[in-house]
């Protein structure tokens, strides 16, 4: 049996969010991934993030494709609506669902195989359409469920468990997303919960397509010496350059930021993302500058983390371009959709 429900007993003293819910109420089924898997840490980050900004569980739509990462939608927010679809095709399900109801929160969980190989096309086009969703890639450089083949994110020179060395260049989802015009592009590490949680919160609130590429080591097939996606390598070579804080609408910005180091991006509901630059020569709100900066550092073998690029894209969000009403399409009354018998009678004249 691979489905293990978790007992739902919570201690009365557990802290509660604005909805009066505890963290336990944002949990899901027990994970069946390998012990120590990076994905489980990301799952924990999602639980913390959703609880922290008090998302109603039933308003969360959890979408995924196929693979280890895609299984995790069952491991958080069991009160949300999960949809584990087919390999590489989660973005199209997300697009359709989002078109039907623009009011919900959409979180897509994918992997490097799911997004960068079989689903590369759908991943790119979801960005182009600026679907309002948070898209998380749990990136470990290998195919886990089929036992350790290289994925398209494997770096040149990285070594497989059995010794094979990858010769093909990787596809970097961060650069790709920036290239395609995404307005919210982040990179993080499953082991850095402090960085990850505010990123997830900001990504969920960002009104457009938000990508977080999370390096998430595969303890079973890609955590050995010679791998560029191991815990050890990541800790050594991943460098935070910009820290993001998510500040909900109701709350004042209380943290003191040194002059010139912080900039904030206002979201449609009045909440804001505060970006703290850790590198002085870097402007994360400029699309071209962000792209160049990240690319140059990759060329030097440095993987920058944090909210690497953030700018408002509300005007090009899917529903804005489509001119859909504020009321979700799935809630429009039939009378607003059906033109009626008299209209049809009039239309017939065209065909005589």
């Amino acid at each position, binding site marked *: 049996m*691979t489905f293990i429900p978790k007992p739902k007993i919570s201690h009365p003293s557990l802290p509660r969010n604005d909805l009066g819910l505890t963290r336990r109420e944002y949990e899901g089924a027990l994970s069946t991934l390998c012990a120590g898997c990076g994905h489980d840490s990301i799952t924990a980050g999602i639980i913390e993030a959703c609880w922290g900004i008090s998302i109603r569980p*039933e308003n969360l*739509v959890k979408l995924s494709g196929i693979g280890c990462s895609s299984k995790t939608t069952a491991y958080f927010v069991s009160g949300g609506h*999960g949809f584990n679809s087919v390999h590489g095709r989660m973005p199209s*399900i997300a697009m359709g669902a989002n078109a*039907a109801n623009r009011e919900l929160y959409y979180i897509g969980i994918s992997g490097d195989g799911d997004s960068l190989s079989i689903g590369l096309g759908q991943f790119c*086009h979801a960005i182009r359409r600026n679907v309002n969703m948070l898209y998380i890639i749990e990136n470990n450089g290998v195919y886990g469920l089929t036992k350790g083949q290289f994925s398209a994110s494997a770096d040149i020179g990285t070594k497989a468990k059995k010794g094979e060395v990858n010769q093909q260049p990787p596809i970097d989802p961060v650069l790709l997303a920036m290239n395609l015009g995404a307005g919210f592009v982040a990179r993080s590490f499953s082991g850095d919960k402090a960085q990850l949680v505010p990123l997830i919160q900001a990504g969920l609130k960002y009104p457009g397509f938000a990508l977080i590429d999370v390096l998430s080591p595969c303890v079973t097939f890609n955590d050995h010496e010679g791998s560029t996606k191991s815990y050890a390598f990541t800790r050594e070579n991943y460098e935070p350059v910009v820290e993001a804080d998510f500040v909900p609408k109701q709350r004042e910005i209380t943290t003191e930021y040194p002059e010139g180091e912080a900039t904030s991006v206002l979201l449609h509901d009045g909440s804001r993302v505060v970006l703290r630059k850790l590198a002085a020569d870097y402007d994360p709100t400029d699309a071209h500058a962000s792209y160049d900066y990240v690319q140059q550092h990759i060329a030097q073998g440095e993987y920058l983390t944090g909210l690497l690029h953030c700018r408002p894209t509300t005007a090009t969000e899917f529903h804005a371009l489509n001119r859909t*009403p504020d009321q979700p399409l*799935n809630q429009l009354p039939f009378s607003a959709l*059906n033109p009626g018998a008299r209209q049809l009678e009039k239309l017939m004249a065209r065909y005589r």
Partner: protein
Amino acid sequence: MGTDDRVNDFAIKIATVNGTGSASANTLLMKSIFRSGIPVMGKNYFPSNIQGLPTWYEIRVSKDGYVARSGKVDIMVCMNAETYARDVREVAAGGYLIYDSTWPRPALLKRDDVTVIGVPLARMCNEHFKGVRTRILMKNICYAGVLAALLDLDLERIRELLAETYAKKPALVDSNMQAIQLGYDYAREHFSCPLPLRVARMDKTGDHIMIDGNTAAALGCVYAGATVAAWYPITPSTSLMDAFKSFADKLRIDPQTGKANFAFIQAEDELAAIGMVLGANWNGARSFTATSGPGVSLMGEFLGLGYYAELPAVLFDVQRVGPSTGMPTRTQQCDLLAAAYASHGDTKHVCLYPANPEECFYMAVQAFDLAERLQTPVLVLLDLDIGMNDWMCRDLKWDDSYQPDRGKVLGKEDLEKIDKFYRYLDKDEDGITYRTFPGVHPKGAYFTRGSGHTQLGTYTEDSAEYQLVLDRLLRKFATAKRHMPKPVIEGTGTAKAAIVSIGSCDGAVHEALDVLKGRGVQLDYMRIRAFPFGEEVEKFLADHEVLYVVEQNRDAQLRSLLTLESRVGKSKLRSLLHYSGLPVSSKFIVDGVLADLGEGRRAVAGVVS
């Protein structure tokens, strides 16, 4: 056959070059006949090309209202030198051949048994019009004028049609009318007009329209309340989506806010298109796509998910000639099996088979009701002939008391009342379970997956739990039979032999039945309108000793589906297969049945003569 018999009963075929504006001339001719109250059919045999390749248009005038090809050409208009040779061969003996005599071609046009009518179309147009493009376009309008004189068409009606078409460009009405008049006058001056084949006013097109199936289906989607349309362009389905967009742009814009009460998404491929449709339906919006054979192949994996995870979806498959890319602008019914069993594993899908544009409209609405009632993808199988040709059919009507059947959906109040919700639990024992939409109520949450699941909605690899759900899906399919549109059954019910057919064959079958009856062969007829097959289909098959299965593909796909999914014995089913890419003609069916009966089986058919 006496000449009188040919009034309002003949076929014209016009051979032109693609991209020279001949479509306007042909539509003009057809519509002016239609507006004279005479039943007419127009079929376009066009190339997969924008400009330069040969193209044909066939107009059949039929006082009896037959809507299929007769299989015979009485008047051939040869406007394409490249295809002269084959076009000349195709005219029936005693027929007429019209050609552009600016360049005489006596050798090629030699036929002693047809009347050759030469009109210097190019020369006249060069003398009267300026500009290369205008001259080419007017040459085609000019042949319409020639035909107007030869067939005795009403010029006022033609002017009226031109005025409607060019309402915003009145200058074009005059220049087009000038070209018509040129041809008209020349014909009247040089030939004895009208020909024995001619039209005479009737009163048989009142309450009728000329519409193509793609347009009618799109209109059905608007009326059914579809809000999310996702697609990838593919001939011959594209015009269905274009039509939806154009209707929705007029009928679905909120008058107060100017907002669009629909979403129209051009996907990156067919896989994404059906994914979006499933996602939208899962989330409670009526959503559809349109495609053709290659798209159905690509959508296979997702259709399997739709079947197993029980997601409504509506898919219009406007069938074209296969296999592979095949002939994209020619017609066939070659996806019957691919649609019924799309995807790996034990899957089967509800299919609807409209026979004409009128049925496309009503079946489009029905498809959404069935998809939501049964929580499964519904495939509506048109073909290029229905989808892209203008058919004469009765006015489309709407009943304002219609309410969409959303099926078993638990809303906020329903969920409030229950203790716990299980997505795949068969509470009503009809195989159909209850569903919920996200964001409605905390108790409505569940997990949708294409992997093995229990009736409670959880993941499983347990054999018994897995089989429970799979067997329930079979029960649901049995329930579906009761909801399917019933077959159309005609005839006396006493004949031993019958025709069984599907979709666009209907027109040709009807005419063939009349012709056969005239020759002493009385057959019953069943037109299948849906899969899975219900009891009415079973009974008809059981009640007849010989069944001619008429369909438009090579491999007898309808016959195969009948033998797989009904109790009928294989040996009773005799195939009449038409798969040239052109719509089946009545002659093909008549010849096929007579040839078979000629082999000493007349007694079986209960035929005396």
